[in-house]
């Protein structure tokens, strides 16, 4: 009977000789994608009609921060923090920072930060059990009075005319709180942090809701377009309908192996279940 030497045997022999080598490729270090995600918010607890319970979708951005401690002053890839920001929250902060007079310092509080519990993924997932809460208290924004019209002075050659700017009503004080936890990021060579799930407890002016979050990076819009003849030229006009081909387009920046679905309400390519979500 012929016997063949299995590759595994050869590998084992080689490994034995090398003492410390292996035949498996090294695991990826824990990381998030360094770009925005489309976060699909599935309400778990709370009133779906309330302001805090009807988020539906958010674009969140993550970044991974390796800590000091590597050789020769380099980063230690096995110890990293992760930060999350919310585009919804950024809207409120931008509003306050752009108010007259501006509210300063709110942007410094926008990040939820936590530590990866391991340096390498376990069963393809990296976990952050709990992130420091994001608490942003926006003070009352006062009414911005009307700016009257500036008439043109016919004595001068320049046109000084400026329209009046109407009064902007004030906004009462608001508070927002994001408690992120159970952040699980898929980390493989093929999907380097580009799918994740998390738990979010969201508090908006005292209203509390809890969500299961499923996010995929990068965000890809999938609104369909109709061809319309305009001035003799064919132009594409958004039609408000979902177009799955935009999620399946291999040049859209999404991993072509991911099974994303064009959500009819959100008009974004989403995953709605726990990662990994791959095509069959």
């Amino acid at each position, binding site marked *: 009977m012929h016997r063949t030497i299995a*590759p595994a045997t*050869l*590998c084992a022999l*080689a*490994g034995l*000789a*090398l003492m410390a*080598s*292996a*035949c*498996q*490729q*090294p695991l*990826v*270090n824990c*990381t998030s*994608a*360094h*770009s*925005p995600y489309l976060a699909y918010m599935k309400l778990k607890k709370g009133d779906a009609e309330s302001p805090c319970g009807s988020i539906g979708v958010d*674009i969140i*951005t*993550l*970044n991974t*921060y*390796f800590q*000091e401690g*590597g*050789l*020769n*002053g*380099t*980063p230690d*890839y096995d110890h990293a*923090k992760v*930060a*999350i*920001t*919310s*585009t919804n*929250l*950024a809207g409120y902060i*931008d509003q306050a*920072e752009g108010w007259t007079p501006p509210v300063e310092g709110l*942007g410094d509080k*926008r*990040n939820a*930060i936590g530590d990866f519990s391991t340096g390498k993924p376990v069963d393809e997932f990296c976990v952050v059990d709990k992130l420091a809460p994001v608490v942003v208290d926006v003070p009352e924004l006062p009414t911005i009075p009307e700016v009257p019209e500036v008439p043109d002075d016919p004595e001068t050659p320049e046109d000084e005319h400026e329209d009046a700017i109407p009064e902007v009503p004030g906004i009462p004080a608001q508070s927002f709180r994001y408690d992120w936890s159970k952040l699980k990021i898929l980390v*493989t*060579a*093929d999907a*380097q942090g*580009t799918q994740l799930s998390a738990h979010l407890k969201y508090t908006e002016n005292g209203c509390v809701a809890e969500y299961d979050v499923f996010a995929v*990076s990068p965000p890809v819009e999938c609104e369909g377009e109709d061809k319309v003849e305009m001035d003799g030229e064919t132009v594409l006009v958004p039609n408000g309908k979902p177009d799955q081909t935009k999620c399946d387009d*291999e*040049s859209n*920046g999404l*991993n*072509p*192996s991911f099974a994303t679905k064009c959500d009819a309400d959100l008009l974004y390519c989403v995953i709605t279940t726990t990662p990994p979500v791959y095509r069959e």
Partner: protein
Amino acid sequence: MAAQMAIVSTAEAGPTDSVLVGVIRDARSGEGVEGAVVIVTGEKIQGERTMSTDTSGLYRIPNLPPGVYDITVLHKDYGEGRRRKGLQLRSGVTIRVDISMIPAGTDRREIEVAAPTVDVGSSSTGLNIDKEMSRRVPIALPTGKGGANRSFESVAEATPTAANDTYGTSVAGTTSPENKYYVDGLSVNDPGFGLNGTGLSVEFLEEVRVEAGGYMPEFGRSTGGIVTGVTKRGSNEFHGGIWATYTPGQLQGQIKVPQREGQTIQTERNLNWLGDTGFDLGGRLIKDKLWFYGGVSISHTDYKLTGSWNRRILWTKDGTYGDGPLKGEDYYAGDPRRDPVTGYQVTERIAGTTFTRRAQGTTVQALGKLTYAPAKRHTLDLLGIYAPQFSGGGDTFGMDQRRGLPEVSSMTGDFNSLAHKYKDNSADVMLTWKALSADGKWDVDTTVGWHHQLNQRLPVDGTAVGANNGLAAAPGVIYRRNVDADGDGFPDYHPMTDFVKVPSGAPGGYCDAYTGPNPLDPTSDRTVERCPAQTWTSGGPGFVYSRSLDRLQARTVVTRLAQAAGHHTIKFGADFEYMGYSSNRGYTGGTLYRESTSGTSMSDYRQYGFLTSPDHANILPNLRWDVYSTTIGGFVQDSWAIMDKVTLNAGARYDAQHLFGGDKQLAMALPNQISPRVGLIWDPTQSGKAKIFANYARFYQSVPLNLADRAGSGEPSIVSSHVAADCDPTDLNQHTGACQDDANRRVLGDNTTPDSYWILLGAGKTPIDPKLKPQSSDEVVVGGDYEIFPNGRLGLNYTHRWLNRVIEDMSRDEATTYFIGNPGYGIAKDFPKANRVYDALVVFLDKRFADHWLISTSYTLSFLRGNIAGLFRPETGQLDPNINSDFDLISLLENKQGYLPGDTRHVLKVFSAGEIVLPGRQAINLGGGVRASSGGPTNYLGSHALYGADEAFILPRGSGERLPWTFRIDTNIGYTKELARGMRLTASVDIFNIANFQQVIAVDQTYTLSDVNPIKDGTVSDLQGLKDVDGADIVKNPNFGKPIAYQSPRMFRFGLRLSF
């Protein structure tokens, strides 16, 4: 005794030594004669080598350095032996000499047999270039890589199927970093990049041996050729020489200069001179016991760089171009005038503005070798080489050692920002022990060695990487403002006088800007610079490094003779290799700044560092990784002379390489590299005059450590941007002060991103596909040789070689994330499979130097196509083995398939030399080379939105017009006078490109600098109306298809040599 010698030969020997093997037969019965004593003597071995034949009459005498040997056979029943003189052995071959003997007392019959030229037992293809050929034939140009010191790698190009490429000599359609380079048995590949790490001068070599393919399992870890320099060794007699060569730049032929865009400061690069001198000496310390050989060589290269100021010629009135590609285009008063043919802006030289700089480099090589015979049948060789190279420093530019040219082609920057001080040292130590058993049936060949390199590129003042003094502390700054602020359709560059004063000899006001009406906006004026600075660099030199590389190796090979249905030469062995690469690099001052095209901001274009939390930056003055790899391997092979008529060579080798990153963790595992090799050789003449052979082989590639250093360790980098008005980085106080103040940084992020001021690049190590397999290629060679006259063989062979899996980095999501895998397999299954297929038909005639003449000529018809050239990218020069940009983006994959840059369809090489002996112990030496080759393919290249210029193949690879044929004739004329017995003085002159052919060797392949997508299966007709990625009309490069390089001009190299 009477001897009837029939000569056949069998499979290969070790890397450098030769083996004599054969059967002593009774001429009448044909039976092997047991107990015959075979004695081999020669100048290159200590004492004599003897062996008694076994029961089958077989003898085998290994470990014979290349040289000339005598054989004597003795047997009690067959009378006294007869000495067979002048058997010449080249390196690495096993020559079989069968001898038929007639018992004493019977009729004697003797047949004279010349030294065999057809290696009837080997299916290896390639060329042996002995010292006679390398001295008498001008093979390698004096300029270019390894030219000045005439390195062994540069002469390897004489091999059929070999060609020069950007980084060395490529073999059989591969790229030069795929080769394996040996000095004797020591592997001297640069552990970081795979190039030749010890460019030893041919003056120290007995022979250069190039194996293009068909080689046996004892050679591995290469998908290219095996290039071996075999060093000289001492002998009982004293031999040596003193030599000098000199190539003056003044005698260069006229150089054709390609037209280029007119710049304010233009640079001409001319050779001042180059040459080398040295001596060597070999002899005995103890007769037949301890020999020595050693020598020293010094080479120097000196270039002159002449800069001059030139100003743009502006139109003085409105008009329309009348011809050329610009025909019909309007111009206005104040517009820069353009050449209607090339589209380049036209300039005129400003008198009194010429200035000069030098670029220079020196290489010293010292070699020492001891050969010791501690006991009968034991030989020890100890080899040491130290080869420091210095270039640049002081007020001179350095030399780019990888290309053999000055480091700069254009002096558009402050000297301190362009110039470097280089150190490229190599050191090698090797100990070889060869032992033969008393019965001659076993021999053991053991080698331990160390190859070391130090490669430094430092600021011109010599300050260290990461230091905080001198130029090491001065950041480099790139200015490149080109925004069209006044809206006249022309970029508003900085005036050159923003950076440097007009030389005092220039007429006053020559560089003053033009101011006049703006033709596109009649309500305003515009300013047009006559002496613009399209780009300019200031401050320190930017990227600097200090690299230390090591290759420790140990190998043992055991050979055993056996008999079963013919004779077997069984070899097996094991080897271990450790490669280390300490890479310390950085940007002077910690940062390389780059101005925005608008001129309003200054970004940290390159800067090592990382963020520990949002906007908390940790800038690294330098980045140092120490990476390494281990490789273990083993092989077994049998060369079986079946019934002594047909030889079957069969065997396999196993290799496993593991690369480790800067954090000492495994970066890549490449186990289970099993390389089968099998060959069959038949001598139809049964007299050693011919062979017909076929061979199949698989070769695996050894991955250089650059991958472990970059992808396997990560290159943490961070970027911020500064308001130009508040941050002038050429002022060191501002660089460390105002430029580091967050108040002067531009906000790059917003409240939707975690960071406001910083962007993180190089996020960590590049992940590896768990299903990654090693890179390999397969080869089939068939052919035949025939000895058409003594020492001359005519051959024909066909090679088919193709790549299997390739290791490359890829991104499936358009540069968001990268991984390393095999294109077309594993998680990269939706990428096209990498492929490179080479087919070559070679006809050659080779006669070594004997009877006062030699010839080595070949014609090669070859086809090379695929979607990857190899371990570097010829189109861009990128040398990042296994992580080049070939497969990086899905949007760049289209049209990559086609004829590769190395596809020169027809190549003819003729090298010949002769010696005319004159009365009075004089001789005239004549040698020469003629080369003719058809031109390679060209492409239509465009810019890619993410990767920039020339990264997109607009049309399928090779769609451009082929380059024209090139011809070159080189000659050598020499005169030799024997001054005393054994002492010869030779004066010679080599003339390269004697006809000063100035044929085009490269054309501009940039079809457009607009960002475009490849046109799938497009043709030239599809280029009409080509749009960029945004749907706008592209701007065609008017110089597309025009020459950008010509052949190297005529050069004279004078030589003087005293040898004894």
